[in-house]
């Protein structure tokens, strides 16, 4: 059983297009320069409809995490218990991305012992190899491996 692929909407599509190039980018308001996530049509701060996508360093910290156990969807159950984390980005701490801490970009979801995870731990983004259709997912590596 495969893992679930993201189903992008119009607002989120650029994130996944940049991810396919191995770039972690976040939507910024072109008028007031505030970042926003999840992506949306206009800026909640200044109501501008002009936006761009700024490249992030990929560095961040674990804001929180869970360790799911069954019952789960079959594709995930085979890796359980695995971790799911929320990472706050170094450049924009209010921008928090859900992801997985793994031993290497293409290592399985259960490749890091959950006991090694701590809130506040430094992580960096790495992108999975492209699959059919070019999809690449950001994963997270512990800075202190």
């Amino acid at each position, binding site marked *: 059983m495969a893992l*679930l692929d*993201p189903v992008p909407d119009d607002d989120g599509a650029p994130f996944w297009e940049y991810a396919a190039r191995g770039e972690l980018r976040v939507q910024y308001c072109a008028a007031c320069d505030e970042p926003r996530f999840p992506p949306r049509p206009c800026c909640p701060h200044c109501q501008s409809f002009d936006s761009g996508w700024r490249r992030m360093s990929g560095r961040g910290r674990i*804001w929180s995490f869970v*360790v*799911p156990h069954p019952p789960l969807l079959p594709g995930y159950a085979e890796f359980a218990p695995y971790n799911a984390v929320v990472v706050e980005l170094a450049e924009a701490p*209010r921008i928090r991305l*859900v992801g997985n801490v793994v031993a290497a970009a293409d290592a399985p979801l259960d490749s890091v012992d959950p006991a090694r995870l701590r*809130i506040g731990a430094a992580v960096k983004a790495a992108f999975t190899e492209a699959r059919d259709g070019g999809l690449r997912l950001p994963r997270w590596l512990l800075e202190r491996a």
Partner: protein
Amino acid sequence: MPGLKDATAIAGIGQTAFAKQLPESEKTLACRAITAALDDAGIAASEVDAFASYTMEETDEVEIAKAIGAGDVTFFSRVGYGGGGSCATLAHLAAAIATGQAGVGVAWRSRKRGSGPRPWRNTAVQLPTPAQWTRPFGLLRPADEIGMLARRYMHEYGATRDHLFNVALACRNRANQNPAAMMYERPLTRDMYMTSRWISEPLCLFDNCLETDGALACVLVSAARARDCRRRPVYLHSVAQGLPAQHHGMVNYWNDDPLAGPAWTAARQLWKTADFGPEDVDVAQIYDAFTPLIPLSLEGYGFCGRGEGAAFTEGGALEIGGRLPLNTSGGGLSEAYVHGFNLITEGVRQLRGTSTAQVPSAATCLVTAGEGVPTSAVLLRS
């Protein structure tokens, strides 16, 4: 401006049995609960002219009205966000009745979640959460989504699993007094809690609500009409809905203060129109799909300060005789998980003096809907 304060009252409540599996359809169960509620009120089905329900409900007012023999219906409403809408059904009916749009309102919930499919297993639909940002990474179930907030809460405020156990235990103790509860004859110990299987660390089995088949209903009428009904009226003193600025349902990770959820917004509105405050609440029925929602809600509704919700649960505060007796029929954790509607009916029983875990001379009750999603709440008084 004439408001909704005490303008309407719950005149009747009804329910079916609660079980892991009931043989009848959701439509049949709904009709049984509604006709029981009308009988409790002493009001004929032909007088019903308003309906309110909330999403994740499979029955609808056309089928229900036809089946029970309702009259011409002039108000119907369906509130979004699943369990966040339970109390809003009463708010919508109250507004309709107080403004003359209808006279006899029915709110209901019928659900076969015990024997039916788990909603998160459906991978074909985008859930109301922004699934592209969460589900591919294995954040699949409500327990995972709330578990994420729970761990952050524990980290920020020093809350422990013992605090979550206090919540699970209070609900279980009340269920052990309630023959209608699924966990009536199933006591819970700290050892059972601490050694139970994980669902999504930091949440274990007993931090999660039950899976239940069952249906419930309420009948709402004007305060004047309620005084002529069979039972002692239970007045809707204050009502509120809450969708906070920059809130994201369930996966509320993307704003400045993710741990201040919809409860805070609903609470500000609720207390603004009430004649009393949190310190005057005799008993509370707080939405408990997961144990960590209780400390968050205790803070949000103003029973304690920010970060003090876990400590509030200490010393038996949530038990009968404690500072705030909680979920006195057992709640979603131990009576039945029917998206919080059993919290409403139990609030009514407390103020009628007919609960199986009666708080002596209870006169005020807070009932809340799902925290972590756009929510709602009501203050009931006798």
